[in-house]
């Protein structure tokens, strides 16, 4: 029987050259609880680990709250990072080297995924395993943007979204990889990409995920609207194009059951 390990990797408070202030952490924790966590809870499959990476210097109060969430959600696993323990090392610590297929899905700590998204990604495991690919990226380009400030929903399409999944073969790599067992390659690739590729000008996102298709075979799945990016004061790059019209106010994101609950809370 083929074994598949699916990691959903979220960097919550991994330091990226900025100070982890209490205010910033409080805002991010609020977004995580309102947007990201409910969408994880609503997943139609339980066969995944949600890896939440936090810097060990993260404020104690914020960590206590995250640990409470970890107790309540069996899929959630918090791993600490530091100058001596990179995100890659943290991910490596939970990768099963005997897995036939390792899937690593990226999810930002202020975004959401459709209820059936992880299950849909896992549907590719067999096809990937039987293919000649050593690695493959799977991207779902269809999604939504939710402007939290103005409560406006937009349809969106991104052939290089930040919600991609990397498929790998850890059991095949473990015997040959010099550095050790097979592991997710997302983080080291991002690191080397930051070094090699400059951030684009004002119009460009600059995030390295927009260039992953340069280096990895990539498949675009057009079966569903799979993700929701929240637009708020803290994410400078995730603006809505001024030319794009929002959906009618009564339209809700299809396939995102948490959004209905969010609407209910607002009315209360």
């Amino acid at each position, binding site marked *: 029987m083929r074994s598949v390990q699916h990691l959903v990797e979220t960097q919550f408070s991994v330091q990226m050259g900025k100070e982890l202030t209490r205010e910033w952490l409080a805002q991010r924790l609020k977004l995580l609880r309102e947007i990201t966590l409910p969408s994880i809870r609503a997943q139609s499959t339980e066969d995944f680990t949600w890896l939440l990476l936090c810097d060990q210097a993260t404020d104690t109060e914020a960590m206590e709250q995250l640990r409470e969430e970890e107790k309540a959600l069996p899929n959630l696993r918090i791993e600490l990072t530091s100058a001596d323990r990179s995100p890659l090392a943290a991910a490596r610590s939970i990768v099963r080297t005997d897995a036939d297929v390792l899937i690593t899905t990226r999810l930002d700590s202020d975004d959401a995924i459709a209820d059936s998204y992880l299950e*849909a990604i896992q*549907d*590719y495991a*067999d*096809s*990937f395993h*039987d*293919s*000649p*690919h050593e690695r*493959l990226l*799977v991207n779902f*380009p*269809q999604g939504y943007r939710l402007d939290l400030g103005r409560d406006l929903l937009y349809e969106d*399409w991104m*052939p*290089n979204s930040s919600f991609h999944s990397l498929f790998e073969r850890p059991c095949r790599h473990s015997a040959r990889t010099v550095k050790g067992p097979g592991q997710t390659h997302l983080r080291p690739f991002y690191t080397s990409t930051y070094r*090699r*590729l*400059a*951030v*684009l*000008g004002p119009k*460009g996102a600059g995030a390295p995920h*927009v*260039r992953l*298709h*340069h*280096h*990895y*075979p*990539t*498949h*675009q*799945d*057009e*079966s569903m609207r799979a993700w929701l990016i929240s637009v708020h004061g803290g994410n400078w790059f995730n603006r809505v194009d001024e030319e794009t019209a929002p959906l009618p106010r009564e339209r809700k994101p299809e396939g995102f059951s948490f959004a209905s609950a969010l609407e209910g809370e607002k009315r209360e």
Partner: protein
Amino acid sequence: MKSLGELEIMLVGGKRLRGALGPLCGVTALSAIDWQRCMDAAPRHDFLLVEGRPDIERGWAAELDRLLAACGEAGVPRLLWVTAAPLRPYWLDRCASFERVFTIDRGQLGALGNAGAPMPTTLWPATAFSIEAQRPRDINVTWLGNWNPDWPPSWRRRLEAILRGAHDHGLHKAAAGENRSALLRRTKVVVAADEQSGSVTLAPPLAFDAIACGAAVITPHEFSNIHDFGVGAAQGESRRDLLPSVSDETETAAELGQLLTDDLMREEIVEHLQRIVANNHTYRHRLATLASAAGYRLVPDAVGSAPG
């Protein structure tokens, strides 16, 4: 089902698409005369793909509506892929009858959406050519040479300006009947202007064929920004478009000046572009994406493309 090769599809399409998809999966090419017999003969069809070409309505007329109705009754997903511009009223009238609608021209998305097309989406063309290694090339710049009097005046002016800019760099206009792939394999830089469609927002198949054949590309179409064909150099240097869009004589001359005088840079650009095409823009990739829209989750099951 575990691979694209196991798919069985019905196709109403032109020669290029039939030739590209034929080696990749089971394809039943339908004709307006005997589509019903073909449909009845096979035990299973995973989806119907209709290519939205400009001349197709002459052959199919009302038969396409019957085919779409029959597929709807049989539960066979119906996909439309518009591969030309301008967008014909024939397709606008029918696009709501499909489960999904795709187009190589992002400028058509609004009209398709207003006509009731479900989730209209850009889906670029691809190449069926094998990725060609670098080799000595004796032609500086090639333009395939087709000229359509029905093109919008703005497009004709744009293309004329670009050809003027290319003229002093050794522009070769393809002769009638000249072998396309052989010509692309001899050329250093291709002016990737679509031979049929005069639409700025269209992604021309020629761009992907040229890259596969080892040529650099400049293009009067504006499409490459949506999938980021750019690379940034080290900090402090400017971003370089690997697949630059040009709109006038000056821009064309400047791009060609760089690409033709610096062989090493041009070859590096082509190598990078070929990697992008091999990873993203073959017909295996398109078939896998179309299959996903029909409910099948299958990876593009090999690197590279069918021999061209």
